[in-house]
């Protein structure tokens, strides 16, 4: 059994230590907001926070998580939403960022992590922080605008 802290809850899962955190979150815990896109840390759809840092859960093994705090999209914007999570979600909705929506959990996780570190990111900062998050619908222009919008919301 491996013990994990996900969205503030202690969970025990019966998986091998080399099971990617992505599949623990999705198949064992049943939180499906975190998406499978590539399995190789090339697209960012599976991004979660590990002690506040954005990580690709498809390449993070369950056995390596230890007592780190894992936050998924459900934790970022749910009942115990962080200020960054709330601002990002509000901005995403205000600017109608989503199209197919499949990558957006990962985009929002990366955006919220950026805003925690950097209160007023420039376009270049956003490009650098989110370049690993692929969106095949190419909603990038709106994502960029929404990150700026979220930054303004946090400032207010």
């Amino acid at each position: 059994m491996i013990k994990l802290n996900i969205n503030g809850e202690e969970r025990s899962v019966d998986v091998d230590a080399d099971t990617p955190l992505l599949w623990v979150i999705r198949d064992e815990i049943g939180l499906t907001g975190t998406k499978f896109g590539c399995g190789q840390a090339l697209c960012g759809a599976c991004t979660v926070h590990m002690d506040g840092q954005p990580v690709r859960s498809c390449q993070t093994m369950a056995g390596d998580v230890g007592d780190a705090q894992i936050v998924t999209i459900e934790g970022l914007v749910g009942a115990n939403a962080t200020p960054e999570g709330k601002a990002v979600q509000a901005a995403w909705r205000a600017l109608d960022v989503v199209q197919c929506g499949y990558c957006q959990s990962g985009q929002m996780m990366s955006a919220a992590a950026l805003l925690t570190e950097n209160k007023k990111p420039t376009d270049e900062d956003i490009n650098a922080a989110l370049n690993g998050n692929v969106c095949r619908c190419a909603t990038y222009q709106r994502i960029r605008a929404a990150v700026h919008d979220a930054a303004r919301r946090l400032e207010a």
Partner: protein
Amino acid sequence: MSIQDRIGGGAPLDMSRRGFLAIAGGAGVGLMVGLKPLPAEAEAAGGLVQFNPFVKVAPDGAITVVVKHLDMGQGPTTGLATLIAEEMDADWSQMRTEFAPADATLYANLAFKAQGTGGSTAMANSWEQYRTAGAAARAALVKAAADKWQVAQGEIVVDKGVLSHPSGKRGTYGEFAEAAAKLPAPVGAPQETPFKDAAKFKLIGKEGLHRIDNDPKTDGTAIYTQDVKLPGMLVAAVAHPPRFGGKVKSFDDSEAKKVKGVEKIVQIPQGVAVLAKNTWAAFKGRDALKVEWDLSGAEGRGSEELLRLAKEAVSKPGGAVAATRGDVDGALKGAAKVIEADFTFPYLAHAPMEPLNCVIDLKPDGARLIYGSQFQSIDQPTVAAITGLKPEQVKIETVWAGGSFGRRAVPTADYVAEAASIAKAINGANPVKLVWTREDDTKGGYYRPFYAHKVRAAIGADGMPVAWEHHIAGQSIFAGTALEAMAVKDGVDETSVEGASNLAYAVPNLKVELTTLKVGVPVLWWRSVGHTHTAHVVESVIDELAHAAGKDPVEYRLALLKDKPRHTAALKLAAEKAGWTPGAKPEKGKGRGVAVHESFNTVVAQVVDVTITKNGGVKVDRVVAGVDCGTVINPDVVRAQVEGGVGFGLGAALRDAITLEDGVVQQANFDTYEPLRMSDMPKVEVYAVPSDAKPTGIGEPGVPPLAPALANAIFSATGKRVRDLPLGDQKFTTA
């Protein structure tokens, strides 16, 4: 026009080449749609009253729109809900949506005469149907209120979903839903339910209406196929042959069986399936399989050879004639100047963010499928044929799709058939979720076909074009499918030549030929289909002719589009908003190019600004689009689709290609087939031409002009024409 004609009987678009779908859907695909209330439904759904196939009203006043189209991001849920809300004078906040079941008698795409989503038809084919459904529901609800209040129907006003009468009486739709459902049919005869006059629109065409899928797609609750979990369900991963057309010779599953969680391993026509209790175990089990393949009948050629064959084909005449007018040979001989240009295009994968998947629960008396179905009228009979069920025993529940770009609508229903084959192989012992990895998706075929083009075009002494000879060679999307006889006429698959055979420019002498090559790699429509390559060729060559004539590219096009008012309007709008100055030379290191193209009855013009970087790369700075898509239903969704089309086209133009060596696909994941990333995304501005014509397509038409406008911008900066896509890592020097 009867209400039945308006709601379901008409075929408002001429989509003859897609008429094939009527057959694909099986005989007896009728379009009759009743407007009769369905009280039985009301009981089953806890007071939810269904007024017609498209509208349900709940006691709390919530209006649920039944969406007959798959939403893979293009926004038809928002658009269709807007049409119903508009006619019902509803408040946007009371609107809900659900996807329609597989039932072509109620939910056919009127452009296809079968149930399916594609060809940018979702809004165009539904424009009258959904408004009629909304108007009919409104009429029934108003009648019920009038009966209860003992007032005339005409005195009742509906605003934001609230009915009111000058006497002070007020009520909600929810209060009258049950009574309205009990009114004798038909409620709301056509003359009582006219469409709203466009001048009275409160929602259609208005800014500020947010996407209806915003909430579930920003809190992780939207359910995609990948997220479906049924009791006892096993996850399946399939080992596919390394070359297209290969088959299983034998396999050794002893190691795969040892993987914890692996439950079953079965051979299916498509390969070997490993079924496990969870996704990771299915992947590990699949990797542990040892399969020996029979590749005797497989495609073994490489991309270089295939492209060489296509180039050879276009270098000589003799293709099937797709279009001809005037005397091209004579005009070429007598021309002042002839330009000859060769183009090549690679295979392209759709690469939606959600790799292909499908959930199926097979029982002796029926099958339940849950997935992002884009083509119910093909998927349903295909599953029936595999499982031995009747089509009506195959129930399809559609869920959100994480992109598609055409990939989920397949004449062979490939991935759905694979899921059904697995379910059959285990005799339906468990529900099955078939999951493809990214690698499966990239290597799985159904690509945009490769093509070679050769154009010889000539101008006269006045610089205007006199002749256009165009030969296209590549694979046909329809050849080899059950739809070939229907879709290929006189050797011409329209999807190979569309956008060239119907050249918009006034060129007096024209000939377009097609040579179709038979290759064992499955191909498919890819966002904007034939226009993905024809637009690049046409818009590059017309640019060359303008240059040869010493004319400004925008003015030259406008002169040739005098009888094309929509092209003219879109082009002028893009040029004006971009600040196009005729004859202006960009500063060193910068370039500007233009293209205009019609696809799916929509015209899009784009002006692209580029910078040639210090290391000779290309950076796209800005794209300004002018769009004529008829009536704009949701301005922001139109903008979003063109923004997305620009990004989708740009990724392909910059670096995407599927290549084969000895029949083996060389790309696997996003490192070798890398989509556009945020740092590549230019600033995109989208402007719509005001129009009160019927809405036309918007999901695809933003794609075709991007590559040629980019190529023309690169030419203006470097003097070099881009005739082979993608750009790849070639370096440019500024002129």
